[in-house]
């Protein structure tokens, strides 16, 4: 093994750091129409009339489209495998507006300035209706967010739009009430998380054009090109065969781009006008009409023996889907499955959930995907239980945590085949000096310090659903081309998959040219989400390279005229040991073309019946100014078990980045609405993400397990790493102040006021 478990530089790194034009917005054809959307100022309204006549008269305006011009089949914009669990509740433009910023009209013009001017000339008469904004009052509210007749749900997720119910679900393991009755201590607590924006640096953007075959070409910053093809087919009522989706470099996604957000608008303009069309969301649009994390309320009942054995947990989660049900039925499941399974000591557990519609921005997929909210609640409840019992929060976890070899009944009944969570805890304690110091102390300047801990898990792809495929070809001259259908969104999957291929084929990473993603040319892949790529597509790389190796060996033997069973391939050459019969890979590459009409290639798909969880321990040290309530994370330790680390640099940076996003969620980020339902903080100056000053010091280490079903023993890392900061920081603040904050983000004013109350 040469490339795997090293810090190979990303294949695209140098073009990125020298600012080459490789993103969607850099590649737009000069003659593309520029699009601007007129958006609803109201959170709930019906359009009575739209007058577009003046807008259409502006010189340079090519089209002004309203709901009357749109196909009337409902679809979901959630990038999921068909049949999607998310309800079909959208139109490209709808007469009924369900959240502030819902699109009302599309203007396509020769320049952005003309489009902007024309948007202002559209006159709309609205019937303004009272919006439903409080998700805790949404179920069976007289205000119905989706009253339409052609609403469709493809999966049995309990959808009942007349009740504002997107989905409902539950599972029970063991005798919950019986076990609670036996517990010495039972706590009941409620935890609240808010909607957060992914805030990837590149906003949503897409351009479209008709190619020489008259097919719709879509170039977009997306995590899910193959899902985009299907979603646009539904939205535009256009056969899938008439659509090609290409993904160039992506400026970050974090789940935001696992939904169709900007694609449908230029696509319909190109379909109706025949002209290339380009739409790039402003930051304000990306903030107010993106696909943020689901706001949730999670009620936890936790029962333990006096010795700290946690025996029973019961969760009820309520999730705010907002105006549209994208990812609603699926995010909620992770709240239970990927939090309860952290505790192998549980004798019984239950999870019940409802997902509801409101007239706020439709939510979507955000790194962690429900597990983040569930882990905040469960880990905080465990911290509160430890405090109640007078136990060290690490000790209570060491007593109860899931261990390798156990079954995980709350995690789809899967076995825990690979897990070093116990060793991660041990190492985190060493790094933080946990056992050597107190959990809280006061500095000479009056500031208070506190320390907290949390554990986390995630999955590695969606078991039985996600599929990854690759094709590897041996070319003339002996280099390989690897076609992948998964989307590198900056995470570096093009490179890590090449690292795996290089080790499978005994060649260098530079011998492998990687190309993704073009739905006409790449093999099918569900896309990069659900922490799937390393584990699922990586598995396809291993299978494909194994097949290709064998083909090269057999072709070499045939060309050399030797018995196939005696021939060996060492990555560079096929040879018969002990003889001078040798043919290099380059020669086989040439020969397989010239006169033999047989390019050597292999393509395999991979899917997994299980989704092995990666694990992590996070520890935070916070500094609190008791006068202002300002909380600063001064030290954060993250110790991760993602199985075999494929790229040491990229895994580390993923972890550091995820932790800092998690710090933002814990202390800063909060999508807020005014009483009429318009987002208040829709700019980067108001919706603040951590700068390098808030990030503090982050220390990351790995304690790899070996996942027997993973490529080279690997599991996932992408989402896991955002899950520990919220509960670890809340616990650190509790340790320092004695006050438990159960609502995120924990704002300075909350901390200062709690201090005053005491």
């Amino acid at each position: 093994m040469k490339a795997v478990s090293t810090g190979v530089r990303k294949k695209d790194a140098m073009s990125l750091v020298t600012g080459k034009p490789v993103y969607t917005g850099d590649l737009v054809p000069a003659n593309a129409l520029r699009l601007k959307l007129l958006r609803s100022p109201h959170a709930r309204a019906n359009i009575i009339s739209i007058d577009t006549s003046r807008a259409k008269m502006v010189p340079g305006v090519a089209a002004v489209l309203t709901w009357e011009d749109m196909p009337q089949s409902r679809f979901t914009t959630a990038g999921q495998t068909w049949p999607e669990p998310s309800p079909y509740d959208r139109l490209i433009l709808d007469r009924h507006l369900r959240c502030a910023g819902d699109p009302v009209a599309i203007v396509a013009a020769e320049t952005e300035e003309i489009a902007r001017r024309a948007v202002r000339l559209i006159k709309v008469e609205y019937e303004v209706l009272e919006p439903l904004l409080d998700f805790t009052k949404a179920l069976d509210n007289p205000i119905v967010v989706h009253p339409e007749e052609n609403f469709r749900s493809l999966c049995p997720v309990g959808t009942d739009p007349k009740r504002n119910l997107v989905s409902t679900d539950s599972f029970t393991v063991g005798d919950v009430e019986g076990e609670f009755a036996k517990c010495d201590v039972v706590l009941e607590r409620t935890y609240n998380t808010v909607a957060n924006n992914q805030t990837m640096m590149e906003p949503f953007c897409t351009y479209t054009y008709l190619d020489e075959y008259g097919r719709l070409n879509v170039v977009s910053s997306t995590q899910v090109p193959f899902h985009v093809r299907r979603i646009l087919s539904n939205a535009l009522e256009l056969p899938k065969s008439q659509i090609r989706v290409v993904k160039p470099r992506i400026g970050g996604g974090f789940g935001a781009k696992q939904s169709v957000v900007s694609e449908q608008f230029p696509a319909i303009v190109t379909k109706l006008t025949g002209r290339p069309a380009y739409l790039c969301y402003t930051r304000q649009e990306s903030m107010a009409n993106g696909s943020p994390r689901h706001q949730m309320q999670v009620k936890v009942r936790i029962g333990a023996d006096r010795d700290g054995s946690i025996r029973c947990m019961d969760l009820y989660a309520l999730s705010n889907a907002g105006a549209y049900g994208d990812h609603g039925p699926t995010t909620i499941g992770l709240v239970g499955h990927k939090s309860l399974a952290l505790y192998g000591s549980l004798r019984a557990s239950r999870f019940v959930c409802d997902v509801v519609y409101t007239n706020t921005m439709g939510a979507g997929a955000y790194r962690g995907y429900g597990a983040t909210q569930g882990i905040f609640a469960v880990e905080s409840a465990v911290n509160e239980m430890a405090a109640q019992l007078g136990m060290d929060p690490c000790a209570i976890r060491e007593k109860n945590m899931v261990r390798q070899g156990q079954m995980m009944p709350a995690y789809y009944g899967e076995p825990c085949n690979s897990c070093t969570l116990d060793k991660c805890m041990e190492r985190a304690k060493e790094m933080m000096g946990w056992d050597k110091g107190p959990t809280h102390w006061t500095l000479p300047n009056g500031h208070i310090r506190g320390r907290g801990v949390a554990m986390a898990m995630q999955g590695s792809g969606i078991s039985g659903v996600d599929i990854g495929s690759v094709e590897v070809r041996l070319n003339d001259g002996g280099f390989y081309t690897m076609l992948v259908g998964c989307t590198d969104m900056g995470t570096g999957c093009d490179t890590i998959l090449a690292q795996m291929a290089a080790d499978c084929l005994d060649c260098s990473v530079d011998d492998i040219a990687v190309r993704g993603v073009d739905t006409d040319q790449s093999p099918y892949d569900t896309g990069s989400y659900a922490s799937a790529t390393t584990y699922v597509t990586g598995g396809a790389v291993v299978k494909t390279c194994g097949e290709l190796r064998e083909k090269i060996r057999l072709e070499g033997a045939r060309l050399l005229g030797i018995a196939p069973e005696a021939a060996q391939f060492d990555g560079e050459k096929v040879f018969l040991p002990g003889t001078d019969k040798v043919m290099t890979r380059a020669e086989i590459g040439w020969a397989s073309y010239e006169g033999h009409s047989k390019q050597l290639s292999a393509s395999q798909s991979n899917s997994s019946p299980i989704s092995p969880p990666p694990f992590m321990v996070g520890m935070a040290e916070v500094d609190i100014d008791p006068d202002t309530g300002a909380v600063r994370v001064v030290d954060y330790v993250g110790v991760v078990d993602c199985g075999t680390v494929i790229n040491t640099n990229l895994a580390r940076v993923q972890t550091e980045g995820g932790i800092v996003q998690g710090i933002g969620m814990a202390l800063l980020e909060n999508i807020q609405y005014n009483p009429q339902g318009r987002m208040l903080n829709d700019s980067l100056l108001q919706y603040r993400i951590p700068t390098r000053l808030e990030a503090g010091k982050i220390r990351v280490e790995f304690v790899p397990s070996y996942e027997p079903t993973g490529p080279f023993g690997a599991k996932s890392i992408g989402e896991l790493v955002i899950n520990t900061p919220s509960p670890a920081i809340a616990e650190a603040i509790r340790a320092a102040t004695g006050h438990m904050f159960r609502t995120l983000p924990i704002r300075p004013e909350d901390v200062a006021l709690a201090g005053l109350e005491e």
Partner: protein
Amino acid sequence: MTIKWTLNGTARTDEVEADETLLHCLRKVGCLSVKCGCETSGCGLCTVWMDGTPVLSCSVPAPRAEGHAVTTLEGLQEEAAEFGAFLADEGAEQCGFCSPGFIMNVLAMVRELKNPTEEEIQHYLTGNLCRCSGYQGQLRAIRKYLAAKGGEQR
């Protein structure tokens, strides 16, 4: 209106609108390294130099470039690659969308501050947001770059 200015060392004349931003103008004339992240001075992605000083091009009207020298990453390719290699060796460029603006500011910092402390580095670059990396790898790259350039780091 017409402006006479210098872009990446070349004197030129361009037609700009009175209300056009320098960011828009730069992308229009082909400097596509300059990225738009917010248009409200909140992210640092559109950082370029005006007469050697970093500015946010989303907040500079294009007509203000009249008589000034503007530098983008297109004009600093060698230095970008030199520092960028350190960033790449940490894997800290990640999606890369913030890299051009960040690198413009790093290269300005190197000219302006001699042997900067870690605190000075962090403060100088605070306005450059990155959502992928958590900033730690960027700092490692800067430290190694400064060390390689022979400066002693305090």
